[in-house]
């Protein structure tokens, strides 16, 4: 039963990280290589606010403040990236690739210089365990799980039940069609980058409360997220969720049965198989 709990925890992490990248890619057809560093900045927001506010208010309140601050700050950073990189370099995918890759290095170095290369961890805001049906469930993990579900629910409501969200989905499916309905591409791009970057930051705060916060935490997460959105179907959020669970299951089982070191290789092979036989991914558009 512990395996089930571990699968759920790992999969929700994959979901929370990958979904922002999938959203940005789906709408803008460009990859933000600094997405991993946006996630890292979310982690450091939590760490810094803990250092700043610890003792002045309950840790739970600090945790909530960190979520709000990280989403706002990093979302704004996403808007700046849209204005300074994506908009100026549109139609030049290679330049965008180099520019965002450069930004990811810059952000890493800035954090190394300002804070240090050492990984940090934040004390559990909600310490302790729940023992249930033979499972050991750390309360902090349950809280993170709960917040991830709320975050995904919020994204779902935004995309499915608001005019702006509907316009974002329409733009992802057909830019020309969207422009002819009076949807401003700049407006959608800014919205998407804000939401996608804020999601990365929220994921960083949530996972920063259970994992190590380090300047380099974004790199590996980004690689995993690529595999997830490719297998899920580029641009498909539901595909990303399905693929996140698929890899959550595979990675957890392989770790549990002592083959964890082969997990990255197996994951990459699955990606290659999907690319060969289902080029549009599990739930991707087949146009």
């Amino acid at each position, binding site marked *: 039963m512990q395996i089930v709990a571990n699968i759920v925890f790992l999969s929700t992490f994959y979901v929370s990280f990958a979904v922002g990248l999938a959203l940005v890619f789906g709408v803008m057809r460009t990859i933000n290589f600094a997405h991993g560093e946006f996630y890292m900045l979310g982690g450091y927001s939590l760490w810094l606010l803990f250092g700043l506010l610890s003792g002045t208010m309950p840790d739970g309140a600090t945790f909530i403040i960190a979520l709000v601050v990280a989403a706002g700050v990093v979302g704004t950073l996403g808007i700046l990236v849209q204005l300074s990189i994506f908009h100026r370099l549109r139609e030049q995918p290679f330049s965008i690739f180099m520019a965002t890759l450069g930004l990811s290095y810059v952000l890493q170095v800035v954090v190394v210089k300002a804070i240090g290369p050492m990984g940090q961890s934040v004390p559990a805001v909600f310490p302790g365990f729940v023992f249930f049906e033979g499972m050991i469930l750390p309360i902090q993990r349950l809280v993170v799980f709960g917040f991830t579900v709320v975050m995904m629910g919020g994204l779902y409501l935004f995309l499915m039940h608001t005019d702006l969200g509907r316009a974002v989905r329409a733009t992802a499916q057909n830019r020309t069609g969207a422009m002819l309905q009076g949807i401003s591409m700049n407006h959608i791009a800014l919205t998407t980058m804000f939401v996608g970057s804020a999601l990365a930051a929220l994921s960083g705060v949530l996972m920063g409360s259970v994992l190590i916060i380090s300047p380099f935490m974004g790199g590996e997460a980004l690689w995993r997220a690529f595999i997830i959105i490719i297998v899920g179907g580029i641009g498909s959020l539901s595909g990303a969720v399905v693929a996140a669970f698929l890899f959550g299951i595979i990675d957890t089982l392989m*770790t549990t049965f*002592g083959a964890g*070191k082969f997990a990255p290789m197996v994951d990459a092979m699955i990606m290659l198989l999907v690319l060969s036989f289902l080029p549009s991914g599990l739930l991707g558009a087949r146009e």
Partner: protein
Amino acid sequence: MRNIQGIPRLALSAIAGAAVLGMAVTATTETVSAQETLVVGAIQPQAGDCGQWGIPITRGVQIWADQLNAEGGLLAGDGKRYMIELKAYDNVCYIPGEELKAGRRAILDDGIKFMLQTFTPGSRQAIAQMTTDNHVLTTSYGAGYLSGDHPYLLGGITGSPAAYMLIASRALTANPDVKRAAIITADTSFGLAAKAYFEAGIAAHPDQAEIVYNESYSPDATKDMLGLLTPLMASEPDMICQLGFVPAQLAIMIETVEQLGFKGVYCAEGFTMPQILKRVTAEALAGRMYSGYAFEASEPTFSEKGHQLYKTYVEEWGADQWTPYVPIGYAAFGTIEAGIRLSPSIDSEVVMKTLLGTESVDHPIFGPSKWGGEEIYGANNHLLTPLPIYNLGADGNLVLDHVVDHAAWWAANMDVALPILDAGGQVYR
């Protein structure tokens, strides 16, 4: 050179490339330039998760160079003083292939003759032939791999992996009631070395303790600490010996097993206390944490000179950036320092022969130490420096618990330990 740390690999390559161009102009067969500067190298991860080890280690070496330079340079056996300049080379994460690339840049491109590398056996083997062919005296914070065919590879201090054996043994000696030992290590080259040495150290106490858990994990699995630790705790250990977690992970591991009710002792190469004490109180852990690697510079009594390293580091980088890894490269370069002081020439071949020909090397931190390693490596190229072992005081500071005489311990326990190291693939003779 200080700001080289943390610059990503691309930038480092660019710097290395620029250095090559610079070398091309002034290249001579001599290592020493007209300014009497000695360029030394350190191959360590400079980014990524392993940068959490590599960057503090590199910073420690830089402070070693700064201290010597502040004295007007290292006074060599040839009567001259040499300013030390450090160049860092990234090996990504102690990966043998990357070690080889970094070694090529250091040795073939930059003409480095004295350098530091990891003890990781695979990485040492990767560049062994290159160090021999190019006469590059290569120290490390431990032995890991040595060979009579490769006399330029030195085990600069007791260090890794020998220390693991001595720590586990010391923890058992100091805690006669500990009976059930758990070993958890990374499944990397250095992790597998640690596993064998922990086993050997525990095997030296056959009447006291048994190993109840002994598993390697993939570093990728550390995302889910709980999945990793539940089977370990199910074996009901009263000692946990660990290697491979980065400092913050180790803090989470300790917090997790404490919450799951662990009351026994920990053994590890080092504990990054600023991280751990954020999660668990010093009172709860006092007296239960055994560690030793080179020396713990935050502890003032073992070495006054070494404690200066701590003060300098904390002044520059902050107390919460301190880790037990800072002193290890510093201490390993101390062996080369001792060799250069003794040698009539700073030619690396002469330094190597002088150093290995000296029966008792006066190490700047550990004092007189003898060579050993024959039984494991087939060559007496490992300087068996005394190993200070630390425990945690109730005030949260590390305190000196005991200094192990490595050579004496080995003489007493070799018969039991050697077959276990052999079975673990750690004997290279």
